[in-house]
């Protein structure tokens, strides 16, 4: 019988579940496949409806998590196998080699400065570059460098090796190997979150062809002070500050061709993004093209009203037909204004697509590995009323990987999953 829990996924849901369990006195192994925890919330500029700075409210939780004596944070790691049953699971976790000694690296960044290789930065959604040796993002926890084995000259072609030469602490180790680590846990909580839908639904609206058509997550990076443009809404083609914005909802969502379901957070996040644009630049005009305006949470209707009344946001009901580009790189949006029964076009500086949010890449494989079922949309299946437990006893799911949900709901579901996991590990089940 094990007294510890494994949490798979280090976004806000995984972090909350880990903290609750740790505070109860239960040991947690938090497994995160990226080089740092924080998930997508760390990429956001602000969060609705409070307009709190995302990293400001997330960072204390990340620091708590990393510093907690009961939490073993394993970044750059993935679950390889799981056997056993509730109360006694045997897990193998592969800790990928970073080629950096975790105990020595101080995150000083000397190596990054000297590295000659440039690769698109995933955290910044490809809008800027990082090096082959890199810190996942500015506030990343832990603050340890990672070498991208697929793009490092030393590791692929045995050339360069500059980072090792400049490292003061002798923290670079090209000989490092992936390690398989065995864990014995009583319960598992899956908190793997979401990814943006694949390219096809986006390309229908000119994404990747028209430079000034971006996704909402790219927009968040542009808007963010720590992003590639220092928080200036400079559009990709000519770095002109975008003052006329079109937000296109339901790109791939509520769409029989791709995701039939509603991604649930986009009406609100697009509203937030429009509000932020107005705060960055006086006189910004935003147009949000929606199907049903979904704002059913606490304070959400008031937020929409403020967007309309105070921040120059216009809501137009209608799906977009297509987006073209004019000679100036301006997106030209063709839409049906369903309330006025007209087909119109609008030229804007920047078009922001709200893509369908899907279960994270690799969910199918993870489900097979954990022997849990997915529902028809690919989310980890749980009882619609009792929520936290998956189809396998002792394995719980929380956050977006279970069902489209916003941050408060993710935090709630994470605490709920922690209660479920705790009940197994504390061994006090009555029934």
């Amino acid at each position, binding site marked *: 019988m094990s007294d510890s829990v494994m949490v798979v996924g280090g976004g806000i849901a995984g972090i909350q579940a880990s903290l609750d369990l740790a505070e109860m006195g239960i040991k947690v192994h938090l497994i995160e496949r990226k080089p740092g925890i924080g998930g997508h919330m760390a990429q956001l500029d602000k969060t609705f409806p409070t307009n709190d700075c995302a990293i400001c409210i997330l960072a204390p939780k990340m620091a708590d998590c990393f510093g907690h004596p009961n939490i073993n944070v394993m970044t750059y790691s993935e679950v390889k196998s799981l056997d056993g049953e509730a109360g006694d699971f045997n897990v193998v976790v592969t800790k990928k080699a970073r080629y950096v000694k975790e105990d020595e690296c101080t995150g000083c960044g000397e190596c990054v400065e000297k590295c000659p290789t440039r690769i698109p930065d995933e955290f910044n959604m490809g809008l800027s570059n990082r090096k082959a040796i890199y810190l996942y993002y500015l506030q990343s926890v832990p603050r340890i460098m990672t070498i991208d084995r697929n793009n490092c000259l030393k590791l692929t072609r045995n050339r360069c090796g500059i980072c090792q030469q400049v490292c003061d602490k002798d923290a670079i180790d090209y000989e490092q190997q992936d390690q398989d680590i065995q864990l014995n846990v009583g319960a598992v909580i899956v908190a793997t979150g979401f990814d943006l839908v694949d390219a096809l639904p986006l390309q229908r609206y000119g994404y990747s062809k028209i430079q000034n058509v971006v996704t909402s997550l790219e927009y968040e990076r542009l808007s963010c002070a720590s992003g590639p443009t220092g928080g200036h809404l400079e559009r990709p083609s000519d770095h002109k500050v975008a003052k006329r914005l079109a937000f296109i909802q339901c790109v791939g969502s509520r769409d029989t061709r791709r995701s039939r379901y509603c991604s649930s957070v986009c009406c609100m996040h697009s509203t937030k993004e429009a509000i932020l644009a107005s705060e960055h630049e006086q006189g910004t005009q935003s147009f949000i093209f929606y199907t049903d305006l979904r704002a059913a949470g606490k304070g959400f209707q008031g937020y929409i009203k403020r967007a309309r009344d105070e921040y120059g946001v216009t809501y137009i009901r209608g799906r977009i037909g297509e987006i073209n580009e004019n000679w100036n790189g301006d997106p030209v949006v063709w839409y049906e204004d369903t309330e006025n029964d007209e087909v119109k076009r609008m030229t804007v500086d920047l078009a922001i697509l709200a893509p369908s949010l899907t279960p994270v890449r690799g969910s199918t494989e993870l489900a097979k590995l954990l022997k849990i079922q997915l529902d028809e949309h690919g989310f980890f299946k749980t009882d619609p009323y009792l929520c936290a437990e998956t189809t396998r006893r002792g394995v719980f799911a929380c956050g977006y990987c279970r069902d489209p949900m916003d941050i408060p709901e993710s935090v709630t579901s994470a605490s709920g999953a922690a209660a479920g996991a705790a009940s197994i590990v504390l061994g*006090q089940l009555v029934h």
Partner: protein
Amino acid sequence: MNDLRIGVFVCHCGANIGRVVNVPEVTEYASGLEDVVCASDNLYTCSDAGLREIKESIKEHNLNRVVVASCTPRTHEPLFRTTCEEAGLNKFLFEFVNIRDQCSWVHAQEPEKATEKAKDLVRMGVAKSRLLEPMEDIEIDVLPVAMVIGGGIAGMSAALSLADMGISSYLVEREPQLGGMLNKLYALYPSHIKAEEFINPVKEAVLSNPKIEVMTSAQIKDIHGFIGSYDVEVQQDDTVKSLKVGAIVVATGSKVHIPEGQYGYNGENVITQLELEQKLGEVDMRREASDMRQESPVSSLKSVVMIQCVGARSEERQYCSRICCTVAVKNSVLLKEVNPSAQVFVLFRDIQTYTSSFEDYYFAARDRGVVFIRYSKDRPPEITDSIVRVYDELLGVQLGIPYDLLVLSTPLVSHDDAKELATMLKVPLDENGFFLEAHVKLRPVDFATDGIYLAGCAHWPAHVGEVVSQAQAAASRAAIPLLNGSVRAEPIIANVNEELCIGCELCESLCPFKAIQMEMTETGRKARVITASCKGCGACGAACPQRAISMQHFTNAQIEAQIDASLITGA
């Protein structure tokens, strides 16, 4: 006061501060202040690197005071305090200066003046830090018993979740039976499981659980105390019991708004969705009783019209009640099942069928022939002679729909006595009368008051699945102090100098937490502080005519030092 060694750390906070305030200039200024032995700036002081720098500086420069000038204590004060502690410095020798919310954010258009103000604020922070004293947290015992107020699905789920973690609880319900709103429902979406079939096993599980003491026909009369030992008076029939618990979960639910005076509401053929549930329930009952000679009220309807957002998303009540669209979809499908030839229309503004399952549910209703008509807030439907006249926004035509039954989807609203309970618990309500959580994003089931938690429709309208999720979450949050057996509280509390106290009782009359009370001592009536209840609000300290009360960590001397520092002009 000898050998003060103060370290000042000024934060750019990305560009939040750095874009307005000249942080290097402020840092330079700070390094020139008396007793400051080191000053540095950081892009994000809260990051791993920033915290490491603070710890290293404490060791390197032998600091005995730390001042961080950055965002707000609300976000990072605990973090920086813990950082100081980890470096061996008492955490109350740390002072937080807010140069973001109180400077860069509000003076964003005046960077030079903002920079000067930031210097003033830092100088004031340094002045206070000179007078800080080391203190220790207060340890409070926690009774390992919870009380759950409300015996609906939220309360029952919370109690069961707590029991599963080995924690006992009282479940207090004012009705004679458990079940709450679910006792009045017919079927639950999206599976259409009968509400009774769903709720009965839950009730049985609660009643048979040795860790849950169920008290029905019981009302909360009064609540005193603080986390770890709340004294609750519960009246059950004629007896009043005094119970002591360590934590409380509020799961008191909500009620359906009755739309008196709207759309001809009469409770007969113009009804609420809840009343429709009851009618649908009667169909089953008649079927079971083989009483099909009498036509059931819903089996013979020809035309049913539902109107969404009645008394919601309006001037009267701004919010969207979240569940009514899905309720309407459910009831329209159930109506079609019972009466396939009936025409069912749903007049909506925006259909709120979100998450992964409800969109398909909405599709299914349309496939069944339910007609959804979009209307606008500016052109609401009108009723004349049993005909609903509505402008269909999408077709662009005015429609007239005769109806046998008009169903109004009204919002869930807070209970009339929510305010009374909120006052007893000393927790806030939002502008709609729903209980207000500690933080809308990251602490959705906690209250700002320690030891009290929240779940279900008392918080906000929610579906059954969401309610259960919240209840389990509240149980998890409550389990933390209950399993640990103790909590630590900040020693930022009032301190009475009994030599100066004249026993005037002004402080006792002002305290919102009942945390300061008069006691007879050898030297006469004196004010005494109940340390575990005191929240350090300062009302007593400000009011005391003898200046006998000082707030720890915000002493009169410290505040006076800050005021003096603020009046110095120039460097």
